[in-house]
């Protein structure tokens, strides 16, 4: 090809374009085709998997709700010297933040942008009405119908829904939530009064008292709901906040006017405890690291130092350690059991090994829950294992406690994860020619030395793959410890589930999930370096 003539004139393809251009074009086309093929599944994966997990991670640092709850307090708290009890202005701020709905009506009501000098904060809406004048004093915008119309559109649209009775009801409830969502930072507060009144209103006339009454009622309901949520959050920071806020909510109704400092401390003496005020400071930042600290048994103190939680609240470090040790024990156990079996499978003639392979693969293909049920039948105190032992003369009164503890979790997890260890080791052993061992022995090595120096080093890639795989799967396990773990077989995964479903401390659940995820991604990266994800095989 490379002769002197072609070096001066560029090579041309059949249609006369230079070869270089033609090749580039076809290369680009082929690249586009490949990208086009991968694009739909990749988009699917990103939207439904990567984004939700990212969403989960943002939750672990999100602390905006508390800023919605205490806008005025947080705007003023930096003026406090943090040594003595705060002065009257801060007490007044707390009082207004906890007892008025003004924050929902004032624009820029969030965190640091709040202007404490705005007179709208001091307006108090009479509890029994009239509402219109007071609300308009806070937020004059509500005078014009334009402010109400978008809300009315939501209600009207829902009222015009067609279908079965249950669908109509669902549409109504959804509209009530949507209206509240537009007015407050809350997703599941219901604005049913507004829904009703907005439908009665014609949309043109000047908004009347009824509408303002509905607005007040719904926002008061939302405010209560918000306090419930944020008091839970505040309780993570300092135990006692929840009951303090609950009690304050009742007592504050009687407080008509200042001085608020005395009134608040009279309502609950904890308002005179400087520790509660110090705890408020730690919640000011809308991005919090508290969940990460909590999931490692640590917290901020008022001087912005990280300190350990009090002794009786420390659980998570112990759980992380337990998760780590259990995964390690399971991994080592699997390795010890898997190595000889993989060797046997790799060295037996094919027709024998196929049968044994089925023994390895069958649990792999069987439902996880079925395997756990099977183990429960085996390990119960009246289970097959104990019955067999007793039949062979084991004393009946000292049956082994094999389930609902650490031992049970280890036994069941080893059996469940064993195929993940056997298969990678087997596939590597399969490629080692048996002649190597024979050669080593021929050269005078005793079998044990030949095994250690010749055979075993060659199996290390498979061992590495199996070990990392089993460890990755074990560390995030949830189902098995939940069902057979009892109290001391619980792992981090179970704690994530507990905080997701029971305590509803979603921030903490997300933070723990995030830490777990980072650990697993590091292991995944190592797996890729050691084995290469392309070499991942199934069965």
């Amino acid at each position, binding site marked *: 090809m490379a002769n002197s003539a072609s070096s001066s004139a560029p090579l041309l393809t059949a249609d006369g374009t230079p070869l270089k251009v033609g090749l580039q074009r076809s290369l680009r086309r*082929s690249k586009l*085709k*490949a*990208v086009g*093929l*991968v*694009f*739909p*599944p*990749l988009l*699917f*994966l990103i939207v*439904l*998997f*990567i984004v*939700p*997990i990212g969403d*989960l991670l943002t939750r672990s640092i999100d602390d905006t709700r508390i800023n919605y709850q205490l806008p005025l307090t947080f705007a003023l708290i930096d003026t406090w010297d943090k040594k003595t009890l705060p002065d009257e202005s801060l007490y007044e701020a707390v009082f207004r933040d906890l007892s008025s709905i003004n924050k929902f009506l004032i624009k820029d009501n969030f965190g640091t942008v709040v202007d404490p000098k705005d007179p709208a904060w001091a307006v108090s809406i009479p509890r029994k009405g009239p509402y219109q004048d007071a609300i308009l004093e806070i937020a004059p915008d509500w005078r014009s119908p334009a402010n109400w119309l978008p809300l009315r559109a939501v209600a009207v649209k829902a009222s015009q829904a067609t279908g079965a009775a249950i669908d109509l009801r669902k549409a109504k409830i959804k509209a009530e939530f949507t209206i509240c969502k537009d007015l407050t930072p809350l997703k599941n507060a219901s604005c049913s009064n507004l829904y009703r009144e907005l439908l009665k209103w014609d949309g043109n006339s000047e908004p009347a008292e009824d509408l303002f009454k509905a607005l007040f009622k719904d926002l008061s309901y939302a405010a209560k709901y918000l306090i419930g949520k944020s008091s839970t959050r505040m309780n993570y920071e300092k135990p006692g906040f929840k009951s303090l806020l609950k009690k304050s909510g009742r007592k504050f109704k009687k407080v008509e006017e200042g001085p608020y400092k005395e009134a608040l401390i009279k309502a609950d003496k904890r308002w005179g405890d400087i520790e509660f005020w110090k705890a408020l400071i730690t919640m000011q930042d809308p991005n919090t690291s508290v969940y990460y600290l909590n999931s490692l048994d640590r917290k901020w103190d008022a001087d912005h130092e990280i300190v350990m939680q009090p002794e009786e609240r420390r659980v998570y470090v112990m759980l992380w350690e337990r998760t780590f040790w259990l995964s390690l024990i399971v991994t080592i156990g699997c390795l010890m059991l898997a190595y*000889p*079996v993989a060797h*046997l499978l790799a*060295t037996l003639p*094919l027709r024998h090994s196929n049968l*044994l392979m089925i*023994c*390895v*693969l*069958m649990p792999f*293909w*069987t*439902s*996880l*829950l*079925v395997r*756990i*049920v*099977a183990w*429960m*039948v*085996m390990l119960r105190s*009246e289970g*097959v294992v104990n*019955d067999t032992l007793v039949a062979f003369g084991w004393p009946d009164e000292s049956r082994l406690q094999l389930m609902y503890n650490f031992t049970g979790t280890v036994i069941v997890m080893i059996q469940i994860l*064993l195929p993940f260890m056997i298969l990678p080791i087997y596939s590597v052993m399969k490629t080692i020619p048996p002649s190597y061992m024979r050669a080593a022995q021929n050269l005078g090595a005793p*079998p044990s030395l030949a095994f250690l120096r010749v055979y075993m080093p060659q199996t290390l890639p498979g061992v590495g793959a199996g070990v990392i795989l089993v460890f990755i799967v074990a*560390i995030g396990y*949830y*189902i098995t410890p939940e*069902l057979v773990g009892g109290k001391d077989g619980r792992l981090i995964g179970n704690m*994530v*589930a507990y905080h*997701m479903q029971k305590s509803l401390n*979603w921030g903490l*659940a997300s933070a723990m*999930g995030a830490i*777990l*995820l980072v650990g697993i991604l590091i292991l*995944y990266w190592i797996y890729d370096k050691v084995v290469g994800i392309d070499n991942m095989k*199934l*069965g």
Partner: protein
Amino acid sequence: MALPSYATPAQRIWHYIYLAMCSIVLFFLVMPLLVVIPISFTSTPFLQFTPEMLRLDPDAFSLRWYRIMMGDCSDPGITTVCSDNWKIGALNSLKIGITATVLATTLGILAALGLSRPIMPFRKLIMAMMISPLIVPLIITASGTFFFFARLDLVATFWGLVLAHTILGLPFVVITVTATLVGFDTNLTKAAASLGGGPIRNFFKVQMPLILPGVISGALFAFITSFDEVVIVLFVGGPDQITLPRQMWSGVRQEISPTILSVATILVIMSICLLTTVEMLRRRSERLRGIRPS
């Protein structure tokens, strides 16, 4: 592996220890599953081998727990709740599993075809992302999906579960189909194209039949993943979305009755069938690609 005739006594002893160890491990792997099967036929409400069963007394065995599983509540000795939930759950699991499998298989084939092309930018990264649902703990996936689906109003819907299960099944299809495509002779598609076939027709007539074993085993993996999945169902599913694993989960958490063992027996038999299918497909695929078993 047999011992050579010149093995020393120590080697012989070691060899037998080794064989014994392997047998114990294999026994450990299979035994719990095999124990479940006879106990599921018990006529008593106890989850153990009664002396009568060990004597092979025919009266000790019955199908009563299978009848209860099928929703026949006429049995006088029922202690646990008897309902149609097992049937409903199986049906729901099938529906969700099949829909998710179809979606995962379609998307997985596309991804595998793209990733197996010689020129693919960010190949490794994309592959790592495609496999990541397999690596990320289910509890994290379930939590993230729950929050995300709550925003999209997909919680407690059929499609919510299907989409979440599709994500879980996708990596399996990508892995198996990519593995089949490794030995694929691209000259075949080129030949087909030169003979005038359009790309879509060529795919279905030439490429698809050759990668079919990989596609089917990937689809089976995806199906079994969805069919066996409980964490996502617990988080994302509504209270009336009963699936088979969910029903088992609640059964295990309350009190295990032999009904669960009947279900387990059926699932074990199903898994044996699936396993056999996949093994046969794997061999067929190796034969098609000209790889002889050693």
